[in-house]
């Protein structure tokens, strides 16, 4: 038994560094420290995989949550790398004052803290608190540019987010009320391990209503249509590192909560099956986002909508259930986080170079900035689900497993995929090819995070290490 548990490190490191960064005026030091803290968090998360701690009343680390934690800390780390260069440029161009950067870094770590707590919580109340905290932190960062648009986006995010949070809390209370007669008053009624073991005896009807509130509440944060409205604007108006984190991590955290409750509900034979609900919402999100992609004028909103589309696919996959679909869902989620954040890294620099987010004012990137341009091409090709990149494998599994089980469901799925594909490729040809368009501001570009992500995605598309496969398969069976 070491002195410091990796878990405590994963949780304390962001919290403490948030406090420290709040007081650190020099942005160079603070961004460096930001990277350092994220690195440490990542390492200790790695330790978690090796030695997962015993679950107690408040914290639980099982195979499911470890996937999320590792992904979370990893993308958190790479994003902090990217954010260092990004913020540097923002300071130089005067988009942000040092004071705001100070605030930004503190909020960044606070958000990481919140997400880690949410992912390790063994207590539905604690999880709720953590997710609310991340919401508030991100709201504050989204509004950081204080332009009209960013304020509007942040305000929209805040209102919709808090309503969602309220729903989630109500659902949580209902779950407790359902559990209380069985497991007795007090803490046990909120502990995952207890709930999962006894859920079969709970009042099914109460669970149903609870699940509706939870799905809507946390689904708002997942960005399911029609609860998605905050997502595109928040992505578009906030600083790009935050867009990367929102798409790459925050959606996953909310998804994690939904999954947990889905498992809980599915374990009660008399309660309604959560699958159909999720399948419907997933398909709606996919189709809606796919069509919305066509009319986008803003590059960051474009990829925000593609995030909605992918969340739709993932929720659909988990809704279908079964070993294949669940495996596919997990894989798709992982790959999407990596790819989408990589894309946002590229987009961040692109918008800095061109000084605009308007797609119309960006073009011919492969000619002017080969590294960035081809990186974008690779990322979009990956996100569009082309081989040999990771998302193709997951989409292959989703579609084929669906089509052999429920052909009628596969039709809208395939159509949606195709429509979205068309939109993405259409925009990509405009962005990356053709005569160069727009200004050419000199920008220091950090290729490492982007290409690191893309390399992982590429490798995963061809070869998944057996350890990971076994791990995912366990989780898939755990998800039922």
């Amino acid at each position: 038994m070491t002195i410091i548990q990796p878990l405590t490190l994963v949780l304390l490191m962001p919290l403490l560094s948030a406090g420290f960064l709040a007081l650190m005026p020099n942005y160079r030091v603070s961004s460096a420290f930001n990277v350092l803290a994220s690195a440490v968090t990542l390492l200790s998360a790695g330790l978690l995989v090796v030695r997962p701690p015993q679950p107690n009343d408040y914290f639980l680390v099982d195979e499911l949550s470890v996937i999320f934690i590792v992904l979370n800390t990893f993308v958190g780390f790479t994003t902090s790398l990217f954010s260092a260069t990004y913020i540097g440029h923002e300071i130089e161009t005067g988009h942000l004052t040092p004071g705001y950067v100070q605030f930004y870094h503190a909020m960044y770590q606070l958000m990481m803290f919140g997400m880690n707590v949410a992912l390790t919580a063994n207590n539905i109340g604690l999880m709720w608190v953590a997710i609310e905290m991340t919401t508030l932190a991100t709201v504050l960062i989204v509004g950081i540019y204080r332009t009209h648009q960013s304020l509007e986006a942040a305000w929209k995010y805040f209102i919709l987010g808090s309503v969602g949070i309220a729903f989630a809390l109500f659902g949580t209370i209902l779950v407790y009320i359902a559990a209380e007669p069985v497991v007795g008053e007090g803490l046990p009624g909120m502990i995952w391990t207890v709930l999962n073991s006894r859920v079969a005896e709970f009042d099914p009807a109460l669970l149903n209503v609870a699940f509706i509130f939870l799905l809507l509440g946390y689904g708002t944060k997942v960005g399911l249509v029609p609860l998605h409205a905050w997502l595109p604007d928040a992505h578009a108006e906030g600083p790009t590192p935050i867009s990367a984190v929102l798409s790459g991590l925050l959606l996953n955290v909310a998804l994690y909560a939904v999954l947990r409750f889905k498992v809980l509900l599915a374990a009660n034979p008399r309660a309604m099956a959560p699958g159909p609900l999720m399948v419907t919402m997933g398909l709606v999100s996919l189709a809606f986002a796919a069509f919305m992609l066509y009319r986008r004028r803003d590059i960051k909103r474009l990829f925000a909508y593609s995030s909605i589309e992918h969340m739709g696919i993932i929720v659909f996959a988990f809704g279908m259930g079964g070993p294949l679909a669940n495996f596919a869902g997990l894989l798709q989620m992982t790959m999407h986080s990596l790819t989408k954040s990589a894309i946002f890294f590229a987009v961040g620099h692109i918008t800095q170079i061109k000084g605009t987010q308007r797609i119309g004012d960006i073009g011919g990137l492969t000619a002017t900035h080969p590294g960035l341009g081809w990186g974008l091409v690779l990322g979009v090709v990956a996100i569009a689900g082309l081989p040999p990149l990771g998302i193709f494998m997951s989409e292959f599994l989703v579609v084929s497993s669906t089509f052999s089980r429920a052909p009628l469901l596969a039709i809208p799925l395939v159509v949606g995929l195709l429509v979205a594909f068309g939109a993405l490729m259409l925009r990509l040809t405009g962005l990356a090819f053709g005569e160069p368009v727009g200004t050419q501001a000199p920008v220091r570009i950090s290729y490492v995070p982007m290409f690191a992500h893309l390399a992982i995605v590429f490798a995963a598309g061809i070869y998944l290490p057996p350890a990971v496969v076994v791990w995912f398969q366990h989780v898939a069976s755990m998800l039922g």
Partner: protein
Amino acid sequence: MGIATTLPCIAGLLALSVAAIALASSRAGTWVIYGISLILSAALLVQGAQALLSGAETSLVLPLGLPWVGAHFLIDPLAAAFQVIVNLGAAGASLYALGYGRHEKEPWRVLPFFPLFLAGMNLVLVADDAFTFLVSWEFMSLASWALVLAHHRDPENRRAAFIYIVMASAGTLALLLAFSLLAGEQGNYAFNFIRIATPGPLTASAVLLLVLIGAGSKAGLVPLHVWLPLAHPAAPSHVSALMSGVMTKVAVYAFIRIIFDLDGLPEPWWGLVVLTAGAASAVWGVLSALMESDLKRVLAYSTIENIGFIFVGLGLALAFHANGLATAAALALVAALLHAFNHAIMKSLLFFGAGAVLTATGERNMEHMGGLIHRMPVTAAAVLTGCAALSALPPLNGFASEWLTLQAILLSPQLPQWGLKILVPACGAMLALAAALAAACFIRVFGVSFLGRPRTANAEGAREVDAWPQAALAAFAFLCVAFGAFPGFATDALSAVTLEFLDVRLPPQADVPWLALVPISAERSSYDGFLILVFIATSASLAALVVWLLGSRATRRAPAWDCGFPDSNPATQYSASSFAQPLRRVFGTTVFQAHDRVVMPPPGSTAPARITVEIRDPVWDYFYAPLAGGISFVAERLNTLQFLTIRSYLTLVFLTLVILLLVVAL
């Protein structure tokens, strides 16, 4: 030998493309990349030929791809046959590109993707499980997409690439659905599982239709062909040669692999569907080619025609196979495979020629060419051979495969189904029509671009291309003649494939005297390209000799007679569109709503009169345009949801909650 040596070569190609990223900008890049890809594809070609002739099957499983399936690889006669086709084209293209590639403006947009493309196509052939197959398949599309975008500054090319990649992935999704039907609930994606499991008739038929969409969209079957005449010409010419001559054959391979190998026993009506699709594509393709005046686009359309020929052969094979007429099925299948092989040669040859013309004149539009035979003799001779072969003229290779297809059609009376009895000869008529139109089309191509007087300064100043392209052109022209004279060897080699799937083979042609082609029996039908060639040569030289001995030997050069009023202006020659005008009036007015509009200048003005030809593609007008319109309509309607007020978004959330609560409550 076999897979164990094939995969390393493919891996070498992949490695080469990585190296190309580094080498692309350097001067030696072109040499190194194309040189090595020439060597590797030659090696693959040899291995393919060996595997085909030995008829041996070698397989291998690697721990890649889908974890619990792994990446299965297999080389059987079918794969070997297409390995030969693909790598023959690949080797030719590499050889050609050794010279041609040096004219590339931005080599780094071509060099890394060229070996990638070759590797993709080879991987499709050896893949033996659904996942590996689809990965390689889409990988192939992706690489070629990048190559189509090589000249990305031209908006036409960007549009072509976009349409191409979208239709390609639509096809991939169709194949994916087909595979998931075959693999079943528990997802046995390995082909050796699928072969064992026999799908029910309904499933099998669904698979056929899906594969017809999936492979057909890649091969360019009407009405899934619209991307082909856009994308193939857009790429650099050696890549166009690969896409048109080889990649379409990979699609044919996919069709044969899935339908003949994996999809159980065919239903009789399958043949009907495939036949109709094939015949329609043949006629449609060649008619479009006749209306077109962009040289490379004409070639692309003619690819559609030839794919139609191949699919007619496959449809016949299916029909015969479904009725247990194994020998007839074998004949049809061999005809289809032989034509695939021949077309790969001919079409690569012609695209090489088009590329040579493009480098020499900078023109793709035939209206701006003319008289090139004087300035580019080697290219002209090679292209002439290619044109004659594609017009199915004896004793060249195009005729051999067409002759076999017709022989297979003549076996149709054996079919019990009346529909097929009636349809097959009708398809034969359409094939004959297509062949005759193809001849007209290539008279037009060669006559307008290589003969006559130069129409522009560019054509005037054309200069013959350098040695490497000439070598490629000459080699492929020679292949056209060789396989026209000795088709028997090819058919014998291909009979390993028929043995694999139909358990019968054509009578070995090597035993036939004079190396003739005798598919069924000597008294039924026989054709001997070699003898015909010899006869023509001897009688021509005999005639020459006689004239030389008896007649006058004097030849005088003089201005053209032209019925007494020759015009020095080359614009008075027949142009491509005026050559096609009679055929346009006969066929085009109904199908393509083609009409010529003459703009006469007012009396007294010195402006020239203009004639413009308008042609519309009904497939595009009535199918694709509405589709695109529908999508953009829905997108436009939904887009309003991006601009609602926060309150209305809250209302949406609110309504969702209420609805769900109602669902639970009631």
